[in-house]
């Protein structure tokens, strides 16, 4: 069943690695792209999708010129985990209603990090709700601006009405080690859920 069974191989080049992804979500301006950039081995890349087109589902372009075009951007980075496995990190658009622009954005994700700004925790509610409803495992990472964390974890957990078992971490999205530790916590949660209890 593993993807490696179907590995495409061009005769001269190296074989294609397996790919997995983690979503970095949260409200507008909470530091998603900053976090992606802190751990990515490449400068974060951006792909933009024209909103009008997908939003209307149009099949021909007549008249589109007259509409004001808007694009929705998706920023992402990459971590080469090993020779044959690459992890992509996608910073989701701040407005969750635009996630449909990439049909498969949430499909097949290992899990998600929901970044929270303690000054505006409500801006991350939509993302929390999205992952809860779809059964996508996530951790909460509270991004302390200037690295400061004025509120204890328990207060944040309460303010966000989080179910038990959802880890809450304090982080600084500008710091590589801090972001790495958040990702490791997510993977640890996935491992704990995968391993038989005991």
């Amino acid at each position, binding site marked *: *069943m*593993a*993807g490696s069974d*179907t590995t*495409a*191989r*061009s*005769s*001269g*080049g*190296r*074989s*294609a*690695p*397996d*790919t*997995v*992804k983690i979503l970095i979500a949260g409200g507008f301006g909470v530091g998603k792209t900053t976090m992606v950039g802190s*751990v990515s081995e490449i400068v974060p*890349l951006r*792909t*933009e*999708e*024209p909103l*009008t*087109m997908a939003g209307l589902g*149009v*099949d*021909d*372009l007549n008249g*589109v010129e007259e509409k*004001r*075009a*808007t*694009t929705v951007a*998706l920023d*992402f980075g*990459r*971590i*080469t*985990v*090993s020779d044959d*496995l*690459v*992890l*992509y990190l996608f910073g989701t658009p701040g407005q969750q209603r635009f996630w449909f622009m990439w049909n*498969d*954005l949430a*499909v*097949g994700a*290992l899990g998600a990090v929901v970044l929270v700004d303690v000054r505006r925790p409500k801006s991350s509610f939509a993302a929390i709700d999205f992952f809860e409803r779809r059964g996508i495992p996530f951790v909460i990472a509270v991004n302390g601006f200037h690295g400061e964390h004025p509120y204890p974890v328990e207060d944040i957990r309460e303010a966000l009405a989080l179910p038990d078992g959802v880890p809450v971490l304090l982080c600084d999205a500008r710091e*590589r080690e801090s972001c790495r530790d958040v*990702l*490791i916590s997510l*993977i640890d949660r*996935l*491992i704990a*859920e*995968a*391993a038989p209890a005991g």
Partner: protein
Amino acid sequence: MGGSDSAGRLVRPFTLTGGRTRPSRGDFTLITTVTAADPQPEAAARPQPEHARILRLCAEPVAVAELAARLDLPMSVVVIMLCDLLEAGRITIHPPHPVNRTTPDLDLLQKVREGLGRL
């Protein structure tokens, strides 16, 4: 956003697809890996310039999202062109590692954890 060129940026990419806005197949996700066939099919005609650009960028395996970013084109446009290239036998594709919530892949998770630990 919303600059005077934005309407052009919206419309122009789809001229690359002959006006098509929907892909002919569903093989391509954000992290599907694409590799140019080597050698290219012998009978094939000379690829059009944008197709040739894609083939250069995927001489080594590359994910669809990266291709779109490097081409500075919407993913929806790139996927339509990739469908053409796949049907012409010019690229091979490798799907993402499947994620199954009911039977998680512990080996995969351990591997990711170790990789992150080395960062």
